[in-house]
């Protein structure tokens, strides 16, 4: 039986070394030792994701590596939080985020990475998938009572769906209940500002920073 610190080190290492078997083993040990999920993420899995994210920023790691890391992360987190109640999951989170690829867009590799990085940083993330109808995005956001709506557009032709989300919130008179954060390859800071959204993130690491800032603004 490994010690608590050894398990946390393993959780970090399995992401850094892209070792799926190690991830499973470490996650089970974390459950056995009753390690707090927040600690398991912040000092273990999340720290590993941070390493991968840094490697990506510096050019050494590329998209496939990040995606594999994200997959291993999701698998481990599934094991660690399997027995937690919904309430317990929520109470431990920095904030609630709804994430999707916007209507008429089917590209979700980037969105999945952002989702994992947000989870790895302690957010409670609800992913409603790709080609998410604008009406569905708003309905789900209301139902789940999220803090932030995050939407990715990977084609210039689907960027207007991000504006549609903001406009639908305004139409329903609930714009002030949600922060809107957008990204995607063709999306820019200027575009996000022009449609009246709250934040633009160029990559997954920035998405985490921006989400933290938005939550801070909400809680302030």
């Amino acid at each position, binding site marked *: 039986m490994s010690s608590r610190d050894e398990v946390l080190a393993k959780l970090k290492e399995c992401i850094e070394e892209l070792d799926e078997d190690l991830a499973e083993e470490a996650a089970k040990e974390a459950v056995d030792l009753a390690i707090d999920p927040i600690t398991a993420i912040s000092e273990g899995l999340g720290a590993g994701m941070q390493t991968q994210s840094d490697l990506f920023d510096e050019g050494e790691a590329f998209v496939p*590596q990040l995606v*594999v890391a994200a997959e291993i992360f999701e698998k481990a987190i599934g094991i660690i939080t399997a027995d937690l109640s919904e309430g317990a999951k929520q109470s431990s989170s920095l904030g609630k985020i709804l994430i999707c690829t916007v209507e008429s867009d089917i590209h979700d590799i980037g969105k999945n990475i952002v989702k994992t990085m947000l989870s790895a940083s302690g957010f409670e993330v609800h992913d409603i998938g790709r080609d998410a109808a604008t009406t569905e995005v708003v309905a789900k956001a209301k139902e789940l009572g999220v803090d932030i709506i995050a939407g990715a557009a990977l084609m*210039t*032709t689907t960027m207007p769906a991000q504006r549609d989300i903001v406009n639908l919130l305004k139409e329903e008179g609930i714009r002030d209940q949600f922060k809107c954060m957008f990204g995607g390859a063709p999306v820019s800071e200027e575009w996000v500002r022009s449609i009246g959204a709250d934040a633009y993130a160029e990559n997954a690491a920035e998405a985490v920073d921006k989400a933290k800032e938005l939550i801070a603004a909400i809680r302030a």
Partner: protein
Amino acid sequence: MTRKEQRYISSEKQREGFRLACQTKIHADMTVEVQNTDSGGVIMESGRSSPVSCRPNVRQYEVELAPPTLEDFRDDCQRLFDGLRERDAALKELEIDHAVLKKLPGTLRKGKWHVSVAVLGGKTVVDVRAEPLEGVYGVSIDLGTTTLAASLSDLQNGRLLGRTSRMNTQIRYGDDVLSRVSYTMTQEDGLSVLSDAIRKDIQEMMKELAQDAGISLQDIFEVVIVGNTVMEHIFLGLDPQYIGKAPFISVLRKAVDIRADLAGLSIAPSGNVHFLPIEAGFVGADNVAVILAVRPHVQDKNVLVIDIGTNGEIVLGNRNRLLSTSCATGPALEGAQILCGMRAAPGAIEKVKIDPATGMPECRVIGNMKPKGICGSGIIDVIAEMLRAGILRSDGSFDRDVGFSRVRQVGPRSAEYILASSEETGGCGEIVITQKDVRAVQLAKGAIYAGARILMGKLGIEAPERIVLAGAFGSYIDVRNALYIGMFPEVPVHAIESAGNAAGEGARMALLDKECRMEAQEIARHVEFVEVANESSFQRIFFDGMMFHNGKSYKDKRSIS
């Protein structure tokens, strides 16, 4: 100078007065000096000249009619039709274009009942002239997102009279099809702006071809256009926005015939403009033309046809079954989105060798001059050579510890390769290959590889028996290097061939031989389109395709596949 500019312009260049045009506000008339003006690029105009049958859709007839009398009081039109039928019994169901009808009485009498007639499709009289027709000509056009290519042919004997090409003026409204679609969605009159731009380009090319061949535009009776789905929609003034997002629906798929004056082209006014049919989604008439020219649909062997442009199209199969797909290769393979990338113009590095012992490069430059940048074929070479020399690892990252003077460390973990030093470019700055450049190539080749692999899986084959590369890019790349970096599924080098501008060739076939248009309809009906990005295996195969499996210094990481 803004902070953004300071980030992108070296201090040396700043002193010389370089600015970023995109960051500069203009307040009054100004002079812009542009360094390194390209003087004419290398754009592929010719295809592999396969023998083409000449069975044109437009024919000319000289007819001698009996003048009317009180006894023979047939109307002018009937008299003309009867005269035509005497010349050619196949002309059973004749009709006449209204514009021609209006000038018919005058023309018949001016020609003293001896006239030249042009008949379209064995059916419609599209011109009647009092003086003999000097010839009947046609133009075939490959309407690319980036490049336009046109050729002029004599429709009586199939002779090629001239070729020309130019950049698509629409580039100023966006580099790729999606940005063009988005322009039509967001700008008032966006569709007509783009539509007019493409019409003007085509008109100018036809004018140039006619002038060079010494013929009149009025004697051009037919134009056959092939292009990707978006280009065709924009030309026809059809709203392209629903092609631009899932589930990617076009306004129509079938072949289109439209009168030249309605299409906004100044040739013979009642002449015909023909578009080959569209396959599906982004895979348009240009791909039908490629199939027409490369002919996988009549072969027993399984052929993989790869047309690499800004948007790549892939076809796989044989006479029994043909599958097609499109993939977003991006412009990296054409030299764009690469830090020191450029078009294949004088000054572009087109071939690269790297000494595996020293890491020193040896470059061949178009126009035998000092290098200014690197074009698509050079990029394939340099990536393959960096892999062979151990400068790149199989996952595409730089090996900083390779110990070559040309590999320069950047930041704490990254590096770049100096392909040409400042000295070698004659003081025009270095030409470097960055980590980002390598990544752009990985994305592009991963997309092609994934497209091909998924089609192979659908067809249930391990490898194609032949690979045919269509498009300009395929003609210039070093096939061995392209195979080495894993751009295509593995086949022996001799199984790969280049078909040149196959889309242009297919368009010309359809212009000269109306049977080919029937064949094109069959092809478009027969080809099964596969939306590869929607396949559950796409991500895994795409990532696998991004890796360099032939790279020798494979780092011990979890295999992505």
